[in-house]
């Protein structure tokens, strides 16, 4: 059984415009019926441009957002319906690491308090040993050097390691990594990526890895889901999707990755306003291969080979019917 099974996940945000919020509330749909599953000890990468809903998906999976629909099954139990004790138990087993370690660490707390807080929340004794082990695992050694420091006294890479240590201290099963290396320098980034891969092997962790960088997903993930404007357009085994992409959007993303060797496909225009998504296939206004039928109805999901599915009419039938 998969550790995490997401079925038809929908995330919306209320759009309040001044006093009109009193009268009627409109919703922006950030994530629209997304489904995926994450087996134990594996990594699923959510890839897409900013605003495509990948971070909202990550937060929703942890039960941190309101206005969420669908099901998020963690070991068979629906996270969205957990309350009280069961929710606290889930919080212990699923953790998050954010993009910007300058934002994700409380500037008023020392490393000791930041990393040790989860222990206090869950009433776990034997702090000191676990604290040191967590810092050690995250590559912060000697731990004593870091324990009494404030975040502003550390470098970006060290901060991200503190965030990772705080996520690891409760021995979680699932980590949501929300662009964990996007804000770091290249040299530091490599160190953190290697650390994440080693930790997964050592601790049998499962990662939901959110990134906009296909190269990162290639390095770390077993499976990948490409998102565009709140929907998954293509998903499957990482190698399969990245080496044999089918969806025009995946192809375009890959073509602009450095060293891809492909002819660059430069998409015209911007991502449309998610409040007014285009009819039919959401990608059609920017798609280099768009046809008339793309405007008419949203494409269904087509399974090309076991595990590799895509949402594009061309995959359904290569040519437009006369």
């Amino acid at each position, binding site marked *: 059984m998969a550790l995490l099974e997401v079925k038809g996940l929908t995330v919306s945000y209320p759009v309040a415009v001044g006093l009109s919020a009193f009268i009627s509330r409109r919703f922006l749909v950030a994530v629209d019926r997304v489904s995926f599953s994450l087996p134990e000890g594996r990594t699923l990468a959510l890839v897409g441009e900013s605003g495509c809903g990948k971070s909202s998906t990550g937060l929703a999976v942890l039960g*941190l957002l309101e206005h969420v629909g669908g099901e998020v099954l963690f070991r068979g139990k629906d996270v969205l319906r957990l309350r009280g004790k069961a929710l606290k138990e889930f*919080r212990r087993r699923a953790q998050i690491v*954010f993009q910007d370690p300058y934002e994700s660490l409380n500037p008023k707390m020392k490393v000791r308090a930041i990393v040790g*807080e989860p222990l206090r*929340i869950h009433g776990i004794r034997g702090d000191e040993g676990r604290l040191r082990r967590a810092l050690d695992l995250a590559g912060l050694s000697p731990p004593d050097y870091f324990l009494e420091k404030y975040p502003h006294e550390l470098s970006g890479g060290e901060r991200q390691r503190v*965030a990772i240590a705080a996520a690891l201290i409760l021995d979680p099963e699932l980590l949501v990594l929300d662009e964990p290396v996007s804000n770091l320098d290249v040299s530091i980034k490599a160190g953190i990526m290697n650390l994440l891969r080693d930790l997964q092997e050592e601790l049998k962790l499962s990662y939901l890895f959110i990134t906009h960088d296909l190269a990162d997903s290639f390095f770390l993930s077993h499976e990948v889901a490409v998102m565009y404007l709140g929907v998954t357009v293509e998903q499957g085994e990482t190698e399969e999707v990245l080496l044999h992409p089918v969806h025009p959007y995946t192809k375009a993303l890959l073509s602009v990755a450095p060293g891809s060797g492909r002819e660059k496909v430069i998409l015209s225009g911007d991502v449309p306003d998610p409040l007014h998504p285009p009819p039919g296939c959401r990608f059609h206004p920017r798609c280099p291969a768009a046809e008339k039928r793309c405007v008419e109805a949203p494409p269904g999901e087509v399974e090309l080979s076991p595990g590799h599915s895509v949402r594009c009419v061309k995959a359904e039938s290569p040519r437009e019917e006369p």
Partner: protein
Amino acid sequence: MGGIGKYIVQRVLLTIPMLFILLTAVFLMLRLMPGDPVLAMLGGRNVSPELIEQRRKEWGLDKPLHVQYLNYLAQVVRFDFGKSSRTGRPVLYELRTRLPATLELAFGGIFFAALFGITTGIWAAVRADKTSDHVVRLFHIGSFAIPIFWLGLMFQMVFAVQLDWLPVAKRVSGIYAYTFQPITRFYFLDAILLRDGKLLLDVFKHWILPAVTLGIALTGFLGRMTRAAMLEVLDADYVTTARSKGLAERVVILKHALRNALIPIVTVMGLQFAILMGGAVLTETVFSWPGIAGFLVRSLDARDWNAIQGTIVFIGVFIATVNLIVDILYSIIDPRVRY
């Protein structure tokens, strides 16, 4: 902590030229104002020119302006602010005896402003854009817009006149005015020192209306600041992280969010407290509160130059002190601030 000691000394030294400029400005402005203390004191009717001349000489007002100014400065550096022409007592004595009344009211105002402002501000931020948020914000704007003297008068009308729960004005009831010998002139403290429960209750009853009036007047601004500061930190990733670790929402808000939102809140409270020293004029007048602000108003009416100059410098010193305390608080609240 050698740094902070040095910082405090520097700040105190910087205050001296500031006060000197303030004093000079007030000194000159008063002498540009129509009217003078001698005429104001003797009244306009049938006063002999000889008497006027005699008083001018007594108070040193017959000398040229620059001589008057230098004489006054020479007094001030010895902490002598001269005598009040209205009461005949030293200005410093007048201020010293009135300061406790003003402070007692100012602390009350700040206390209620913090009680109403910070709590409603947090509440509004947590429920941002929901109906309860709109209601709280309406209350904030209302509190900001209501004229303070009108609010004071309404409170007097409702709670003192109609309901007869509380006294209308002053710091204590008439029966105590003759029997009660103040020790510190902080009446709450005095009542406790005298172990007089009835007096304490009496003092409280007199204090509560003006303190709440001031508090409500200050709530709006503080509440809006708190809401804005909280909104900023409630979105921060470390707040989401704290939630994801299973921390109770109440603890997330108070420990992770509020502590990081405190800097602007403390700044506003410091400014408001300083303003209260001089700005409680209307409240002190409405409630016949024998504080510094009321003294300043009556001194202005009497063209009591010494008293006005002394009071303004006094308020200046007070504002500088509060600002210094706020700056020191920054370094306690935020470990990144170092002096």
